[in-house]
């Protein structure tokens, strides 16, 4: 078997393009994945025009004014602002593609916000100019603007609720209040009730029932308005999220991305190499000569899968080494990486052998391997709930019948301790190895007779 292995390596050496692709592909994938997951998502460029007069402030119902909201600073923390001086300039920048969108705060924005506290409220409105030249960009723009406005609305609601709560607290607890620069003392309901209690003995008995009613009102108001402040605060963000997961803890996104990239690399390298080198025996007409007494069919299959495992291991480790430049990997788990890569490569190699035994030549088997592995790999990444239950069941069956998903699960488990263990995926892969090798053995009979 070692001489056949040597022969396949010699053939690989004679195919510089194939070797370059084998090395360049994982390195390129490693660089792309590493670059993508090691960078924060970039802020979109947005043209910003503030037409609100400089002195405008949002007024409260008590006649006071809220602290400055600092709209410019808040918006520009979330996007890269490009200040413009007119609507025409904003439109031009959007049209030319200099910016993703333009955000314009109209001059009447504060007046409309202030109207919310009156009997004649108007809807505050900001103007947005976009250039939705393609559906993908349109989606991105819509999502960004929705997120921006949601944050702005939440901030304003919190400011108003906080301010309302502060005044309510003043009414209950008492304190000082400034009117036109003059400090006014507010007694507060709590102090009012105590003061009236202390005065009660000195009030004539005939007037005490009326005083009692006032004291009861002050006490009730104090006690009930105590709970009003937290209620107002809740209005700013009525629903809080408390997340509970029914699955095991998942690994961080960057680790999962590395696992996906490594498994994709392993899939293409191993599957294509094993399928191609087996089909080559048919293309070169050497299969009958080899199996006519020189090697057994099982030994030939073993050699091809062994070749796939060896090259898959080297290329995947190379790819992980490249990713390490961008993302810190836990090298103390290296032993588990090896197990996951070897098991995954064995499963994918066995599948490649079955494909190679079914095809007539290297080109058609390469095409077949791509046509099968790419959609299956994509299907394996479809999360539950993303499609209907029946369709998802079909996807699960397809994904389970191909080694990509268990190889990905094994790789994820090997790279990070979070999530399910590596045992299940390894068992799954072992079953697939046996099944695919049996299929390949069966297909080789046809291979020999055609």
């Amino acid at each position, binding site marked *: 078997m070692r*001489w056949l292995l040597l*022969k396949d390596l010699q053939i690989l050496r004679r195919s510089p393009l194939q070797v370059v692709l084998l090395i360049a592909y994982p390195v390129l994938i490693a660089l792309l994945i590493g670059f993508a997951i090691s960078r924060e998502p970039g802020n979109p460029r947005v043209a910003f025009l503030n037409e609100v007069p400089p002195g405008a402030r949002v007024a409260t119902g008590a006649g006071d004014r809220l602290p400055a909201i600092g709209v410019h600073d808040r918006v520009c923390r979330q996007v890269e602002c490009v200040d413009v001086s007119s609507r025409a300039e904003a439109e031009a920048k959007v049209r030319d593609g200099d910016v993703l969108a333009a955000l314009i705060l109209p001059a009447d924005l504060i007046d409309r916000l202030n109207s919310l506290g009156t009997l004649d409220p108007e809807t505050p409105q900001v103007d947005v100019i976009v250039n939705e030249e393609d559906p993908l960009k349109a989606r991105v723009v819509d999502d960004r603007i929705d997120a921006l406005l949601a944050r702005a609305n939440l901030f304003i609601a919190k400011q108003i609720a906080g301010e309302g709560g502060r005044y309510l607290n003043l009414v209950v607890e008492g304190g000082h209040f400034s009117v036109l620069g003059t400090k006014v003392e507010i007694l507060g309901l709590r102090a009012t009730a105590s003061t009236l209690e202390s005065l009660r003995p000195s009030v004539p008995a005939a007037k005490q029932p009326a005083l009692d009613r006032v004291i009861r009102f002050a006490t009730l108001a104090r006690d009930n308005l105590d709970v009003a402040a937290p209620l107002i605060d809740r209005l700013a963000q009525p629903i809080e999220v408390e997340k509970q997961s029914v699955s095991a803890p998942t690994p961080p996104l960057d680790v999962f991305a590395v696992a996906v990239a490594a498994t994709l690399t392993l899939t293409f390298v191993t599957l294509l190499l094993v399928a191609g080198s087996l089909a080559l025996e048919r293309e*070169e007409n050497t299969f009958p000569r080899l199996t*006519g007494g*020189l090697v057994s069919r099982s030994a030939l299959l073993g050699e091809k899968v062994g070749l796939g495992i060896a090259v898959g291991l080297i290329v995947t480790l190379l790819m992980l080494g490249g990713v390490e430049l961008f993302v810190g990997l836990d090298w103390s788990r290296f032993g588990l990486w090896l197990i996951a890569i070897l098991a995954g490569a064995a499963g994918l190699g066995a599948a490649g052998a079955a494909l190679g035994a079914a095809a007539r030549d290297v080109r058609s088997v390469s095409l077949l391997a791509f046509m099968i592995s790419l959609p299956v790999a994509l299907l394996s990444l479809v999360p539950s709930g993303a499609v209907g239950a029946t369709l998802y069941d079909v996807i699960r069956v397809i994904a389970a019948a191909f080694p990509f998903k268990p190889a990905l699960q094994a790789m994820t488990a090997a790279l990070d301790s979070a999530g399910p263990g590596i045992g299940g995926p390894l068992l799954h892969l072992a079953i697939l190895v046996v099944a695919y090798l049996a299929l390949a053995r069966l297909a080789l009979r046809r291979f020999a007779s055609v």
Partner: protein
Amino acid sequence: MQARGLVKKYGAREALRGVDFAAQPGELVGVIGPNGAGKTTLLSILAGTVKADEGKVSSPNGEVGWVPQQAALYRRLTVEENLLLFARLEKRAEPRKAVEEMLELTGLAERRGDVVARLSGGNQQRINIAIGLLGQPVTLLLDEPSVGLDPRQRARLWEFVSGLADGGTTVIFSTHDIQEAERYGQRLLVLADGEGLFDGSAEELREAVRGETPEAAGSDFETAFVAFLQHRGH
């Protein structure tokens, strides 16, 4: 090498219908017949790469070397790498020495480092035959060895093969080229529709035709051969 009552079916089609055959050491036997006669099937069964449905093949004197019609070698390896690989797979005690012998025999020692894909069809066929000889076979089976070769290449090939037979190797070859079969085959086996119609020398076949269609027997061997087949309904 002996074969008795060989039958092979591909579905409903019978490729061989009870063919008997024998070849002696150092004999050069040509298997001829029209397309679909069963020539390749017979040689594949003798080589052991295809199993007969019925009948028995015995080769008591040792190894059988198989040279398929299409060169069965790795075109991206060099001449030497191909020979070395198969010498090792044949478990030759001294594979490098065996390679040198084959390079000498084929006259391709100077092209040992050339990738096979760059060799001419004739030279590829010589390597193909040399690989078949690496197992030191007593019997060499050649399936249409001269297909695609020009006359000069064909002459060199047959000179090479005749040399092997002179050295004691039994050579059984199939061919479509009737003149070639007459020239190089010491004995001819004629197959048609899976049946063995004739087993003897070219002169014996011509004699058989002379009794059936005298005018054809006086003509060239190919004309005599066609008349022989037509007289038997093929």
